[in-house]
C-alpha cells in the first residue's frame, strides 16, 4: 500500500510552497484585486521560469515532462497561496486539451509558447447563465470559422488562445481560436473575485481550427473536464487548508469571556468538522490523481467525487473563515473575503458541485 506522493514529489511541493510564500503572498492577491489588472504578470513570468506552466508538457516542447501527480501538487500550492494567475485556465485546460487531442503539428505550434508563459490559454463551454450542455450550443463552427458568444470565459481578457466547445453541423467539436484574430471581440466582465478575470468572447466568422476529430467534442470535453476537475480539486483543497489555518490561528489569539474562543466547543467542533471535510476531499482527490496518473477507468467517478468534495470543503472554509472572525471577517481590510471570493469562483468554474454530483450518479448508474 503506497497511497501517498513520493519524496521527490513532496520536495517539489515544498519548493513551490516556499517560493509562493515569498512571491505570492495574500498581499499580492489583494494588490491585483484592488487594481485594474486581472492577474499578476510578474508572478506569471516567475511561475513560467520555475517550469510550472509546462509541468506536464514533454521536454521536446519546452516542458518539464512531469506527470499529473506533480502538477496536482503544484495546483495545491497555487491554491494555498490564492495566486492571482490563470494557472487553471492555461495549464489544466488549454495545455491539457492540446496534449489530449492536438496533432503533433498543433502541439509543436502552441505547447512551447504555453510552457514559456508567453501565451495564455483558456477554455470556454458556457454561453449563458444556467447549466451548459455540449449538445445544445449556439456557437457554431463551419470547418474553418467560428461564430457565436461564450459567457463567461475565465481569464478571457488575458488569453491569446481559447479552446471552444462548439456545434459543428449536427454534432459537437472542440475548436481552437487565436484571440487576436479578426472577428474576435473580448469584453471584460466584473468578477466575483477580481484577482481572476472573466470575459465575454464574441466570434463573428473568426478563423478557427478543429482540435481532434469532427464530432468528438462532447467526448473530448468530458475527458478534459475530468482531468481539469481533478487538478482543480487540489487547488481548492489548498485554499481550504490555508483558510482553516488562518481561522485556527485567529481563534487561538482571540479572547472572549476571559478565554480563547478556540476553547469553546461551539467553535472547536466546527473547526473539527472543517478539518474532516478537507481530509475527505483530499482523500478523494488523491484517488482521482492516482486514476489520472495510471489511466484507470475509475477516473470518471473519482474526478466527480474529488471535485464535488473539494468544492464543498473550500466553500465551507470560505464561509467559516468569515463567521469565526466575527465582524472583522466582513471588512475589506481582513483577508477572509479573499477566500470567500476565490472559493465561489473556483466552485462554479467547471460547473457547480451539484453538477458533478449529477455526473457522478449518471456514471455510477450507467
Amino acid at each position: 500500500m503506497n497511497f501517498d506522493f513520493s519524496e521527490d514529489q513532496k520536495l517539489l511541493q515544498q519548493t513551490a510552497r516556499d517560493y509562493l510564500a515569498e512571491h505570492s503572498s495574500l498581499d499580492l492577491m489583494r494588490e491585483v484585486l484592488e487594481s485594474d489588472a486581472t492577474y499578476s504578470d510578474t508572478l506569471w513570468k516567475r511561475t513560467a521560469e520555475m517550469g510550472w506552466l509546462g509541468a506536464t508538457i514533454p521536454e521536446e516542447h519546452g516542458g518539464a515532462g512531469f506527470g499529473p501527480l506533480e502538477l496536482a501538487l503544484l495546483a495545491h500550492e497555487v491554491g494555498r497561496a490564492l495566486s492571482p494567475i490563470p494557472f487553471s485556465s492555461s495549464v489544466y485546460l488549454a495545455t491539457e486539451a492540446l496534449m489530449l487531442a492536438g496533432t503533433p503539428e498543433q502541439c509543436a505550434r502552441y505547447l512551447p509558447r504555453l510552457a514559456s508563459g508567453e501565451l495564455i490559454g483558456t477554455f470556454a463551454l458556457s454561453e449563458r447563465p444556467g447549466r451548459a450542455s455540449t449538445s445544445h450550443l449556439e456557437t457554431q463552427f463551419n470547418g474553418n470559422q467560428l461564430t457565436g458568444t461564450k459567457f463567461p470565459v475565465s481569464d478571457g481578457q488575458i488569453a491569446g488562445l481559447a479552446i471552444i466547445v462548439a456545434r459543428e453541423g449536427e454534432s459537437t467539436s472542440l475548436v481552437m481560436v487565436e484571440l487576436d484574430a479578426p472577428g474576435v471581440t473580448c469584453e471584460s466582465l466584473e468578477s466575483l473575485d477580481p484577482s481572476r478575470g472573466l470575459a465575454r468572447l464574441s466570434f463573428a466568422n473568426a478563423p478557427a481550427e478543429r482540435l481532434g476529430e469532427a464530432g468528438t467534442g462532447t467526448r473530448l470535453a468530458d475527458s478534459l473536464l475530468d482531468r481539469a476537475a481533478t487538478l482543480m480539486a487540489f487547488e481548492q483543497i489548498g485554499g481550504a487548508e490555508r483558510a482553516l489555518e488562518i481561522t485556527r490561528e485567529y481563534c487561538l489569539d482571540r479572547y472572549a469571556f476571559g478565554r480563547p474562543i478556540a476553547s469553546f466547543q461551539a467553535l472547536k467542533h466546527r473547526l473539527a468538522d472543517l478539518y474532516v471535510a478537507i481530509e475527505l476531499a483530499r482523500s478523494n482527490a488523491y484517488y482521482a490523481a492516482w486514476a489520472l496518473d495510471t489511466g484507470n477507468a475509475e477516473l470518471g467517478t473519482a474526478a466527480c467525487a474529488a471535485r464535488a468534495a473539494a468544492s464543498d470543503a473550500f466553500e465551507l472554509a470560505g464561509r467559516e473563515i468569515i463567521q469565526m472572525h466575527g465582524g472583522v471577517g466582513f471588512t475589506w481590510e481582513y483577508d477572509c473575503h479573499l477566500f470567500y471570493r476565490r472559493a465561489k469562483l473556483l466552485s462554479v468554474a467547471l460547473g457547480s458541485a451539484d453538477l458533478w454530483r449529477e455526473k457522478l450518479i449518471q456514471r455510477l448508474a450507467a
Partner: protein
Amino acid sequence: MDFTDTPEEAAFRAEARSWLEANAPQAQPTGRLMSMEDPEAVKEQQDWQALKADAGWACLTWPEEYGGRGANAIQNVIWNQEESRFRTRVNIFSIGLGMLGPTIMTHGTEAQKARHLRPMLRGEEIWCQLFSEPGAGSDVAGLRTQCVPDGDDWVCNGQKIWTSGAHYSRWGALVARTDPDAVKHAGISYFILDMESPGIEIRPIQQIDGGAGFSEVFFNDVRIPGENLVGSINDGWRCAITTLMNERASLGTSVQGLGVEALIELARNTNWQDGTALDDPGVRRRLADFFIRSKGLQYTGYRSLTAISRGATPGPEGSIGKLVGAPLGQEMASFAVDLQEESGAVRGADAALEGAWQASYMGSPAMRLAGGTDEILRNIVAERVLGLPSEMRADKGMAFREIPTGSDR
C-alpha cells in the same frame, strides 16, 4: 502511488493466506452462531482462537514472549484482510487482546502477565471492560464505584454499565475510586476482577433494536485480592489511558451498515411513480453525497495504512473513521427507509431485503455512542489534531467527593 504490497508484505500475505486456506475453510460460523447470546457461538469462537494461537496467529501485534507474533501494524492489517475473506469478524476477544492485554503488559506485575496473558490469547478466558458507569460516560473519570482496603484485599461496591460480553467473560478490567478526597483523576485504581467472585450481579440491558449485547454489572461487597491491583494505588487513570489509547487505535475506518453500493442498488430496484428511485434528482443528489463521503473515508483509510506501512503509529486522526462512518451509516439507513415510502415502516420478513435497512436504522445510533461519542471524537480532533485548548473544567482542583456527577446533584 500504487496499491500493491511491497515484496515483504506480499510474502507475509501469502503466508497468512496459505495457513488460512489450510485451516479455515469450514471456519465461517452459521447465522445462528453469529449471535453471542448463544453459548455455542462463544464456544465456536474459542475453538477458532485456540487453533490460531497454536500457530501464532492469535494476536499478531503482541510480542512473541506473550505468544504473539511481534508483527508490525501493516502485517496486522494484512492478516485482518485475509481472515475476513474466511470469517465475518465478530471478535469477542478484541477487548482483551486489543485493549486490556496491552495494559497489563505495560503496567501489570510479572505474576499478572504470567497468569493472564496466555489464557487471554488462547481465548480460554474472555475479558470485559468495567469502565463506564450510569453517572460517568464521556466523563469516565467521574466514576463512583469504590474499592476500600480490608486487610490485604479490597472490597468493592458500586455499579458499571455498557459492559459488552459481561455474561461470558471470566475476567474484567475494573477502574474504581480508591481515594474520594483526592482530585478526580488522582483517586482511581485499576484492578483485575474475577467475574465469578461472590457479590457480582449481571443484568443484561435490552437495547432499542431488541438485542442485549451488553449489561449492567453490580458489585455488592465484592472482595478483590491485593495482588490483582494493576500499577500503583491511585495511579489507575494512567493505566486506563493506556486502555483507551489502544481502543482508539483499534477503531475502524469503515462505513457502518450496509454500504453505499447496496443503497444505490436499492434505489435502482425501488419503484418510483413511473420509473425507479434512481431517476429522481433529489435521490440522485443524496446518493452522490453518500458515495463521496463513503469513498473519502475508504481512501482516508488507505492514507493511514500507507503511513502505518512506513512505520508510523496510528494517531488521533484515526478518530475521523468513526466520526464520519457512524453518522453516515445512520443517515444512509434512514434514507433507505425513506426510499421505501410507506413500506419503510415495515420491518422483518415482509420488508424489502428482510428488513436489513430497518435493522440498520435501529442499530445505527449505537455506533455514534460506543467507543467515544461523536462529540468526544470532535474534541479529540480539535484538541489533538488541531491543537486547540481543552474545555475549561468546572471540577478542576476539587476533591472528588465535592464534585456533582451524573444526575446526582
